[in-house]
């Protein structure tokens, strides 16, 4: 734009070493008339920057002008078009008159520097100003006038603005003309041709993709078929037919399965608990130092924890008769113990209830007894005294304390998902009583009492001075409409309907026609409660640990994945660390969709689509890109059509090859030529 009369630069090797000299660009060591012909314009960085700035200004103003021209006042008068035509003609005239200067400028080194610098600044600004954000965010961050500036300069979607695209186009023009001017077909200039031309090729590929491409989405559930996609690229035609159909045959989310860890938490600098270390539950049961001199080892791990009742043959014969049988698909036997008042029998698959009594006399007493009214709840205190309690009631305790009974569950289970306790059934398998101990001037102390684990509280970190309370549940043994009663003394099972014996069979035949296996009587048995796992699925793991400080005594604790339970957190001896059993967060290993391609009703192709492994078919690429944890058969696909892609990838290769040529091949060619 601004012709200067600066003398042609004197050639000077940039550096003393041949290596650096060889790196020097064509602008200096090629016989370029530009440097010796005083008639030719010599642009400077300043003049080039001015040119880029002028173009930028025009491009920023252009959309505003266009909008102004299309206001209702001017619309239809033809004035808008006249102004545009005149402006275009003027611009064309200026370009024509100044074509030599313009050509010399935009193919010059200073212009390339101005161009690179402008794009650098623009890109930086594009990361500093919020892009495509909500209007409220702009107002909050930049204020009203700031937001006006941001919008006026199109900085809120900078990379898709008219001016940014215009500058990129100007760069493409400059690079193309540069290739012509530098005669890149000469051997020594191959690298320049490839590197600069490569960038042009990439931009052309991007342009082709922008014009002929399409971007959209397909949502499928397993078994569903789509033959078109919904475009998300703002095209007027929202639905684009594919020309074929894709069917989601199967969708799988694969998780990393080693996700359970013991995490060591310690208070961080600002006092909040932070994960300091993580321990994998491995095969090894070696002592592991967890810090603070503390050693920990895993004794047992149950992936799907449950407390199981089992019968053992009484060693000294002082036990009671017991019955074991395996129901349905269970892998473990269910058990009954005669005379255990807490035993309300077993539900059999035909709806009947199975009980065990010692003798036929006892059976007669049962039949004669009046209908009972459920269970009796008893809380036994440390001094041996007993309280008869009901949920909702409040009872006096020693030392002025009071006991409030909140809930009684016959079959306590803890639901990890909802983080709440509930009863798994009406059977008194794991009776539990939720109580609050009220003391004046203190917060209520809430705890669960488990009938089958009377020493649960003392095992799980309750303070030594806490009131020891024992829960006893006595179930009223009353007969229902359909009962089976096994009598230990004669080994026979009576079937009762409405209190009358309708059938009597030996144990081995008592359950014919029912899915009951391996029934056996133990004349003298004791019941034990053992921890076990319901399945191998890591649903509600409990890990049993031993820990000790140095050579100190070994303490055994169990730690549960449920952190709201007392055993959910293990405090270590240093008073500053806790161990927590937890699952790692981001544990999806892969999303896999099996897609079938159908043309005219015929399946022609099938592919597994994963992240990083799109399906390419018929000019479209299908990307695994969405899933919904709550909707496991759903899979979402991004669909792209990009006819410019081969061009872009070619440009990538050309550009890198060109740069390598300039950097490492050309110096050798020149060195040979000069020698």
């Amino acid at each position, binding site marked *: 734009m601004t012709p200067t009369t600066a003398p042609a630069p004197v050639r*000077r090797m940039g*550096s*003393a070493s041949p*290596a*650096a000299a060889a*790196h020097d*660009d064509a602008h200096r060591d090629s016989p370029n008339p530009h440097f010796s012909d005083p008639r030719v314009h010599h642009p400077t960085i300043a003049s080039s920057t001015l040119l880029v700035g002028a173009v930028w200004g025009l491009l920023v103003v252009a959309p505003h002008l266009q909008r102004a021209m299309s206001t209702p006042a001017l619309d239809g008068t033809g004035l808008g078009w006249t102004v545009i035509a005149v402006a275009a003609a003027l611009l064309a005239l200026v370009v024509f008159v100044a074509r030599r200067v313009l050509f010399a400028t935009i193919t010059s*080194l*200073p212009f390339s*520097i101005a161009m*690179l*610098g402008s*794009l*650098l600044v623009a*890109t*930086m600004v*594009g*990361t*500093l*100003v*919020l*892009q495509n954000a909500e209007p409220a965010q702009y107002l909050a961050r930049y204020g009203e006038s700031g937001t006006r500036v941001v919008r006026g300069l199109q900085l809120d979607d900078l*990379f898709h603005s008219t001016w940014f695209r215009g500058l990129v186009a100007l760069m493409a023009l400059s690079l193309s003309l540069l290739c012509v001017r530098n005669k890149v077909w000469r051997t020594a200039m191959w690298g320049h041709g490839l590197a600069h031309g490569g960038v042009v090729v990439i931009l052309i590929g991007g342009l082709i993709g922008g014009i002929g491409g399409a*971007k959209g989405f397909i949502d499928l559930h397993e078994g569903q078929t789509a033959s078109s996609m919904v475009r998300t690229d703002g095209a007027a035609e929202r639905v684009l037919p594919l020309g074929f159909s894709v069917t989601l045959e199967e969708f799988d989310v694969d998780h*990393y399965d080693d*996700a359970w860890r013991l995490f060591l938490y310690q208070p961080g600098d600002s006092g909040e608990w932070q*994960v*300091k*270390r*993580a*321990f*994998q*539950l*491995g095969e090894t*049961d*070696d002592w*592991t130092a967890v810090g603070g001199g503390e050693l920990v*080892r*895993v004794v047992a791990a149950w992936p799907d924890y449950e407390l199981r009742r089992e019968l053992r043959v009484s060693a000294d014969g002082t036990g009671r008769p017991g019955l074991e049988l395996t129901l349905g698909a269970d892998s473990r036997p269910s058990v009954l113990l005669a005379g255990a008042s807490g035993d309300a029998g077993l539900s059999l698959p035909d709806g009947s209830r199975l009980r065990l009594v010692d003798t036929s006399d006892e059976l007669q007493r049962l039949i004669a007894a009046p209908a009972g009214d459920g269970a009796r709840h008893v809380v036994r205190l440390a001094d041996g005294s007993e309280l008869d309690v009901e949920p909702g009631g409040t009872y006096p305790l020693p030392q002025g304390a009071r006991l409030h009974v909140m809930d009684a569950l016959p079959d306590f289970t803890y639901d990890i998902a909802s983080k709440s306790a509930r009863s798994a059934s009406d059977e008194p398998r794991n009776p539990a009583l939720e109580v609050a101990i009220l003391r004046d001037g203190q917060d209520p102390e809430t705890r669960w009492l488990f009938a089958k684990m009377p020493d649960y509280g003392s095992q799980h970190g309750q303070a030594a001075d806490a009131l020891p309370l024992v829960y006893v549940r006595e179930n009223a043994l009353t007969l229902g409409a359909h009962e089976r009663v096994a009598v230990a003394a004669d080994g026979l099972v009576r079937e009762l309907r409405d209190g009358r014996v309708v059938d009597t069979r030996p144990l081995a035949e008592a359950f014919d026609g029912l899915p009951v296996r391996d029934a056996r009587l133990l004349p003298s048995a004791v019941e034990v409660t053992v921890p076990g796992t319901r399945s191998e699925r890591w649903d509600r793991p409990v890990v049993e640990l031993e820990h000790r400080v140095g050579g100190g005594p070994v303490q055994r604790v169990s730690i549960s994945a449920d952190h709201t339970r007392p055993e959910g957190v293990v405090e270590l001896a240093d008073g500053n660390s806790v161990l927590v059993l937890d699952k790692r967060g*981001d*544990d*999806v*290993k*892969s999303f896999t969709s099996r897609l079938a391609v159908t043309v005219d009703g015929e399946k022609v192709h099938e592919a597994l689509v994963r*992240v*990083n492994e*799109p399906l390419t078919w018929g000019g479209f690429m299908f*990307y695994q*890109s969405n899933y919904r944890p709550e909707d496991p058969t759903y899979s979402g696909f*991004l669909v*792209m059509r990009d006819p410019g*892609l081969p061009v*872009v*990838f070619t440009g*990538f290769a050309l*550009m*890198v090859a060109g*740069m*390598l040529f300039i*950097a490492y091949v050309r110096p050798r060619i020149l060195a040979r030529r000069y020698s």
Partner: protein
Amino acid sequence: MFDAGLAIHPWVGAMGALNGGALLAWLPGARKDAVGWRRAALVLLVLAFALNTTLLVARWVDAGRPPFKTLFETMIFYPWCVGLVTLVLVAMHRLLVLVPFAAGISAFGIGYALYRPDVDTVLLPPALQSGWFVPHVVTYFMSYAALFVSFALAILALAKRSRSFETYAHGAAIFGLCALSAGLVMGGVWGKFAWGDWWGWDPKENWALVTWLAYMLYAHLRLMEGWAGRRSMVVLVGAFCAVVFTYLGMNMLPTAEQSMHVYQ
């Protein structure tokens, strides 16, 4: 049970100590006649590099995936790349003067890594399970290492007014720029297969572009009359700031939360 993350940390600490030792040994070695100290510094750097190599291999085997996922892991990988570039230049051009720079940045990186350690082996999300993961990251980190070396040499060139340092700085910068371009292009190809776009105007991508443009600017500026010498060295020093920002500064950007690339 066994430690899922920290087992490696004492060794990382040892590696940091070796690098710190190399830096300390250089201090008396800076005197012209103290060849012994300089050699000691080099030996310590070689030992640190050997330990670094072992740690990377061990971590790779242990995690069952390339150890380039987290900031902590890259803070162990980056010193390795710097060490490699430095040792190659020491072997090729006797550029022993790079030893304190390499040791310094390595010690700094490892210190930062241990200040913010991984407590667990982070699993690889589906997007990173790609054949492009290793070439893309390795190319980029080799580039960043070469560009650090060019930065160090540019400072030396400015401080000592040495033409030969300028030459070496330029060589390292050009190597770094070539690798930067290759890494950028690989990222584009990977992005196309992972996300559907070879360029998404993501803040991290944009800063990678800013870095690339900055070095492109250097490569062109130094061809201008009067820019080949000290002025282009100043440009090199400035351009490395873009590298540092692209690597570590993303969290400062208001647009960072829109990025898919930011190290957690």
